[in-house]
């Protein structure tokens, strides 16, 4: 950690005017592919470092950190509410593949945002703020962006169908959802920059300002703008809230603000399509996590029990199928 603190020191002047060093470096979280560190400059400016650990092999769908940083900068240029990226670091440097951004103040825990009293006053405006942020993200010119995969409703569906088939599970509700979604897959006309993990839990929310930053860009890709809308409306991310957008807002709040901010016309039907695909996707992800237990790769009770959360997505899928029938 001392080495990392030392390696960060030369960046200090770039992070805050008058800064000469960095202090108070501490690890916040980290998995196999990603570390998050917090620190301050000696002038007191709060920072976040996202870094790929030197030993990391890279994880499946995640974009490189340099891409993440470039996308956040590009979204900021379009006026999206995102963290300020202040410095990037190359893979062969002492710090390694990483970037530094200004640390935001607020809450990311979905349950608190949806239910806790401090967020009562900003909650009614939050879905509109999300719609406005998405309009800016989706308006980023795709020429000149780092390489990103393009995926349509059908390619996303096929990806998760393969996960389900590979699990060996036989679940009629998943079969019905797959069939329904396959028969109605919308075509991808003009792919836009899609955040890819836009949901309650990945947005930073301040009790007075509301949305202050869209976080967690590692699943960004080119695709259907309604994918981001469907994902934040997916019932698994409502945290007990009664409203469809992240548990805190109505569809119209999200869509009207999106259009008002220059986003293209998107039908509620298309959002509901992606919402159903979102439930299927999370259900398949629960199965994947359970399979880590079944294979012996992760023997924790948490990995075992998450398999039972696939049934939550099934009840949501049935509700959506009934609504569509």
């Amino acid at each position: 950690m001392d080495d990392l603190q030392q390696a960060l020191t030369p960046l200090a002047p770039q992070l805050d005017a008058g800064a000469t060093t960095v202090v108070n470096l501490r690890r916040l979280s980290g998995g196999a592919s990603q570390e998050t560190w917090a620190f301050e400059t000696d002038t007191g400016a709060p920072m976040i470092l996202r870094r790929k650990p030197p030993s990391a092999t890279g994880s499946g769908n995640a974009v490189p950190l340099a891409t993440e940083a470039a996308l956040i900068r590009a979204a900021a240029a379009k006026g999206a509410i995102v963290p300020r990226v202040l410095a990037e670091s190359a893979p062969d440097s002492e710090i390694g593949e990483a970037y530094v951004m200004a640390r935001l103040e607020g809450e990311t825990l979905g349950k608190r945002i949806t239910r806790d009293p401090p967020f009562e006053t900003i909650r009614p405006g939050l879905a509109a703020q999300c719609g406005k942020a998405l309009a800016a993200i989706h308006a980023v010119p795709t020429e000149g962006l780092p390489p990103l995969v393009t995926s349509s409703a059908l390619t996303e569906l096929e990806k998760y169908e393969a996960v389900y088939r590979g699990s060996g599970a036989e679940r009629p509700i998943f079969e019905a959802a797959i069939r329904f979604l396959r028969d109605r897959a919308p075509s991808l006309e003009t792919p836009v920059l899609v955040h890819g993990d836009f949901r309650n839990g990945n947005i930073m929310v301040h009790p007075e300002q509301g949305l202050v930053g869209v976080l967690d860009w590692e699943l960004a890709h080119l695709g259907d703008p309604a994918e981001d809308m469907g994902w934040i409306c997916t019932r698994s991310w409502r945290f007990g809230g009664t409203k469809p957008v992240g548990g805190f807002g109505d569809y119209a709040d999200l869509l009207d603000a999106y259009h008002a901010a220059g986003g293209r016309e998107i039908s509620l039907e298309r959002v509901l399509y992606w919402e159903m695909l979102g439930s299927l996707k999370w259900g398949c992800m629960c199965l994947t996590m359970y399979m880590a237990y079944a294979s012996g790769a992760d023997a924790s009770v948490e990995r075992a029990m998450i398999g039972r959360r696939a049934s939550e997505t099934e009840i949501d899928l049935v509700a959506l199928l009934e609504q569509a029938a």
Partner: protein
Amino acid sequence: MITQPTSIELIESVIKFIEERAAPQLKDRDAFHARVAVNALAAIKREIAGGQAAEDAQTARMVALLGHDGDWATLNTELCGKIRDGEISPTDPALLAHLKASTIDQVRIDQPQYAGLKTLAG
């Protein structure tokens, strides 16, 4: 079957031990896993109490839907195949009625607090 104690009583005693004695000694990830363990035991308890009745009801509905007898696993495989191949539409009212009843029973076992249960089951 031995009933001194019943399996339900055994599970309840383990839940009580984890919640009252073990969990308070744990922190961070272990404390979280202790909570998950209690949830898992509670689901097992509900499955022991209601799982068989739910499976029997599911089998009876599949017999009606598919028009012939069979055990749960065989019927379930056949139903999955017929939906996959398009022989039964995913919006067929009789299919949806079966899926709805089955998922309500399953979520009552797995996650009875889930908000989606209230949405669908009322």
